[in-house]
């Protein structure tokens, strides 16, 4: 008892002096931040969630986690899977609301999807679907049906050295598309492999005003710092107009609602009021003799359940930082700024006044993203345009929670296709606008690199 009381006393002194300056740093999501470090670190609802929002969150959670079943079944609210799909549930890929990894040799991918398209743009500005396969290769199908094909990944090692002579090796992915269900793809096909990202904190990113995004943008690099920052303008299927994009690896989705409905139809084959048409093409269905849902049928995902799953994603909290006062972490934090990582991985943003959920309004958040598109160089390019995003541009991904990924998902792979085996490799893949930052990293000492990693691990 005496021991406990004394340490409380010390903690009070400590809090009242040195810690004031950094104590806020731990609050990745302002009042919404949760203090969790186990494998459920991405799965908690906002710390400040109201009782009623919480009930919606739990309903959404149920539909995010449970497997969907083939239609028709008795559980009508949970059927409609396929005919073609990549997964049976959201959580199959976003395991514990975390991040997926690319398939191992011989595995059917669960968590990496292959987007495909033909050259050009649709009237909406979006990519042009393949006439047989659409915009995404479905790797699974209902019993008796043939999936569209399978993605296989192999890697070639690419060596390099730091300025201090220490060698490193990166793995460059090479994709083979096999078992195609409707004949070969056009030689002009553009591919974009994309790994399912972690989904915590998305509500806060949605609550950042468009003005805040635009204020950071510098598409023509007028300030001459070598970093542009571009807002993607993408199609809003409900408003039928172009709006600011902010979700997805290329910021090609404007809202969590549309992102969610898009994933339901694209990844699970489940139609919704936003996307009432199945994810397969008419020609694929005719070739394989299956009948898609008649037009007069209700969408498989009702408006209410779409709202609940959206609410679930809006209300997953970002976890608090750890070890913020550790000297190496603090040194790493200074290096993160000095190496200009923070120019795109913006440490701090503020959410706006107007989000429909009061919990998300007026929060100071530390997502380490500007939500803007940046040219990342030829090494990372997929060569596939997505609205305003070029084949070399990617949206800055948020870094909050990145130090807990291994605990949540049991792996440390990073980047849009999971090619980086760890944080170091992810940094070394940066190019284009981030080339100067990469060079600073290459030129840094081993101790500095280690400090930078300590900082990233604390996020």
């Amino acid at each position, binding site marked *: *008892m005496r*021991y*406990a009381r004394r340490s409380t006393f010390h903690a009070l002194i400590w809090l009242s002096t040195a810690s004031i300056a950094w104590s806020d740093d731990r609050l990745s999501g302002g009042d919404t931040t949760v203090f969790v470090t186990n494998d*459920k670190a991405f*799965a*908690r*609802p906002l710390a400040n969630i109201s009782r009623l929002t919480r*009930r*919606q969150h*739990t*309903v959404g*959670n*149920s539909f995010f986690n*449970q*497997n969907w*079943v*083939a*239609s*028709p*079944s*008795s*559980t*009508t*609210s*949970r*059927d409609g899977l396929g005919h073609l799909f990549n*997964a*049976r549930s959201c959580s*199959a890929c976003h*395991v514990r609301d975390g991040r997926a990894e690319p398939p191992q040799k011989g595995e059917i991918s*669960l968590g990496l999807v292959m987007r495909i398209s033909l050259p050009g743009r649709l009237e909406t500005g979006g990519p042009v679907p393949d006439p047989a396969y659409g915009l995404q290769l479905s790797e699974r199908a*209902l*019993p*008796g049906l043939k999936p569209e094909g399978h993605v296989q990944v192999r890697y070639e090692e690419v060596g390099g050295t730091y300025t201090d002579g220490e060698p490193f090796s990166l793995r460059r992915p090479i994709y083979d598309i096999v078992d195609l269900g409707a004949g070969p793809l056009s030689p002009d096909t553009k591919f974009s492999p994309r790994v399912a990202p972690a989904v915590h904190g998305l509500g806060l990113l949605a609550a950042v005003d468009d003005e805040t995004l635009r204020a950071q943008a510098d598409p023509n690099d007028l300030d001459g710092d070598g970093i542009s920052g571009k807002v993607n303008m993408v199609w809003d299927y409900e408003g039928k107009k172009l709006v600011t994009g902010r979700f997805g690896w290329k910021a090609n989705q404007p809202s969590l609602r549309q992102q969610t409905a898009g994933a339901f139809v694209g990844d699970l084959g489940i139609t919704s009021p936003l996307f009432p048409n199945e994810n397969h093409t008419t020609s694929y269905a005719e070739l394989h003799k299956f009948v898609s849902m008649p037009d007069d049928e209700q969408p498989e995902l*009702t408006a*209410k*359940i779409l709202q*609940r799953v959206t609410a679930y994603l809006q209300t997953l909290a970002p976890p608090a930082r750890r070890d913020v006062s550790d000297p190496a972490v603090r040194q790493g934090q200074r290096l993160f700024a000095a190496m200009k990582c923070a120019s795109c991985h913006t440490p701090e943003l503020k959410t706006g006044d107007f989000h429909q959920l009061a919990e998300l309004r007026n929060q100071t958040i530390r997502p380490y993203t500007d939500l803007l598109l940046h040219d990342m160089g030829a090494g990372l390019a997929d060569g596939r345009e997505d609205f305003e995003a070029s084949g070399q541009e990617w949206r800055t991904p948020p870094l909050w929670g990145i130090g807990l990924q291994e605990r949540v998902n049991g792996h440390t792979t990073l980047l849009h296709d999971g090619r980086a085996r760890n944080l170091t490799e992810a940094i070394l893949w940066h190019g284009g606008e981030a080339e100067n930052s990469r060079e600073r990293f290459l030129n840094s000492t081993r101790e500095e690199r280690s400090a930078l990693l300590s900082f990233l691990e604390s996020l």
Partner: protein
Amino acid sequence: MKRTSLPLVIALAVALVSCKQGESGSNDQAGANGKALVNDQAVTEAEVVEHYAKLVSATYTDAFAYAKTMQGAVNAFLAEPTAELMQKARDSWTAARLPYLQTEVFRFYEGPIDDEDGPEGLLNAWPMDEAYIDYVEGNAGSGVVNNAAEFPNIDAALIESLNEKDGEANISCGYHAIEFLLWGQDFSAEGPGDRPFTDYTTADNADRRGDYLRAVTNLVVEKLEGLVAEWVPEKDNYRGEFLKLPTSKALEKIMTGMSMLSGFEMAAERLNVAYDTQAQEDEHSCFSDTTHNDMIYDLVGIHNVWTGSYKDLSGPGLQVLAQGLKPELAGQLGSKIEDSVAAAKAIPVPFDQAILGEDDAPGRKAILHTIETLEEQAKLLVAMAGEMGFGVPISEEEG
């Protein structure tokens, strides 16, 4: 030391209780021995934990016995498929559910039922992938039953393998698969499904359907037998390990089962989801329309652990320790556990009709009342666990 250890709390509580008892001249020796005194009975934590293990064993043994009876009824029906024997098989299923539902409070703490290789997913998984098993409305040729080319032999090993595709399983086994094969899809507002017995005589693939029903029933029996073996009084099984745990660790597990079942599984997943979506058939026992049992008997299971009784078995339940520790809180929790069982019993049958209508419809009011009672029950369990010196989760993400 963030948490006060339970033995210390008990010792303090006991000291208080025993002083009182001492004043009145009764057994104050018990206090010195570290025993809580309730109703003049001296009870240790270890005795409560040990009695819990007995209760678990008795409940699984009963669930297994009823499943064996069900297996007999299913086999009798398959030997001579008639409407009468089909009804008997259905009745045996409904009866077999009742003890099993009372075992659900033994989940959520990585015990034998749901540790890494636990059979929970093979016994009680939901929602059912009906079209993966057999024909459904709109697809006469669907399912393993109707696919002799790919699945020439239907047995328990096949069914188990189909359900073990990591995270991507088709749910095609367990109690609800048996339910589907006995009742069929439920398309009526008033009653359950009405699969004709001729599905097992003259219909296409009748024999294969029978093979599936037999195999899936055998699998349930086999998995329950495994659970019984983990809890019978031997040293070399889970029960042996459980009784070797520090008592506070064992109590934490016991209460985790209660709090998770109250808050996460019942209030949120089963009741609130159905209440909110109003999706008819978004209910667990949708083919037989016996979802009301799923609600009531899970809560009865919590009541059993609290009181220490199951059928003929009685002994020191958790309430004895709770009363020794915090009489007022224990009183509130005890009444809440009674209330929640009563609230679930008051939900009109069938459940899939009770969720419909406006919020002031009697069924919806009864369900909301049950949800709120369970939310309060979960909070009281958390508070009581705190008094005992540990935390318990009430949602999956806390687990």
